[in-house]
């Protein structure tokens, strides 16, 4: 087999030096000025109608910039593959815990 610069050679990973130095940025390592942090409320019920979501206590907490529910983005859908119409946030009904 002819000599190759690539085949059969030992190459260190191109990003290994950064990873072993702690320099690689993973998603939770990114800090941007003015960055907001969000917290997701997941449904505690496996199958239930959403009658009303009272966001007043959350909105009144100091530092809270926004509280978003399904009502705010009723038409937002996402998905790929077989299912293309998943809702961003549950609207009217929850179908599983989480």
């Amino acid at each position: 087999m002819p000599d190759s610069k690539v085949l059969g050679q030992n190459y260190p990973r191109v990003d290994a030096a950064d990873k072993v130095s702690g320099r690689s940025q993973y998603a939770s390592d990114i800090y941007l000025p003015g960055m907001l942090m969000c917290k997701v409320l997941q449904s505690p019920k496996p199958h239930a109608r959403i009658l009303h979501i009272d966001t007043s206590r959350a909105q009144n907490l100091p530092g809270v910039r926004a509280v978003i529910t399904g009502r705010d983005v009723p038409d937002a859908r996402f998905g790929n593959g077989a299912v293309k119409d998943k809702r961003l946030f549950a609207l009217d009904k929850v179908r599983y815990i989480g």
Partner: protein
Amino acid sequence: MPHPVHLTINAEPYTLLVEPYCSLLDMLRDELQLTGTKKGCDEGDCGACTVLMNGKTVTSCMVLAMDARDQDITTVEGLRQGNTLHPVQAAFVQYGGVQCGFCTPGLIMSGVGLLLENQQPTEEEVRFAIGGNLCRCTGYSKVVQAILKAAETMQAQTS
């Protein structure tokens, strides 16, 4: 209510204000942006948050920042000297001990901590020393090999 904490991190003195419930991990990552140390489980099980406190490995998510007062902390960022990697870091690169890399800082700190106490570990001793570090990618064998090779390199350097 925030309290002052004075400590040494990677040979630099720091004085910070932290809440009493703040973990050393959160202080390193959020207050100092030393994000090399990772938060995996935040409950002392995965080892991704491993740092050295006075030369001993600790899971920093389980150490209160205030309990690190006056202590000497080494994180993964403190190992590299300019462009020169620590022998354990270099061995991880050379021997393929890194894949996604998320557990890597913790594994490296465990390796460094072991070699501070035991310069000629057996394979079994290496495996025991990294027993608190979970890795989903590598299957550990190249990590163990890297730490053993690093031990050889460091022995050769001192003799």
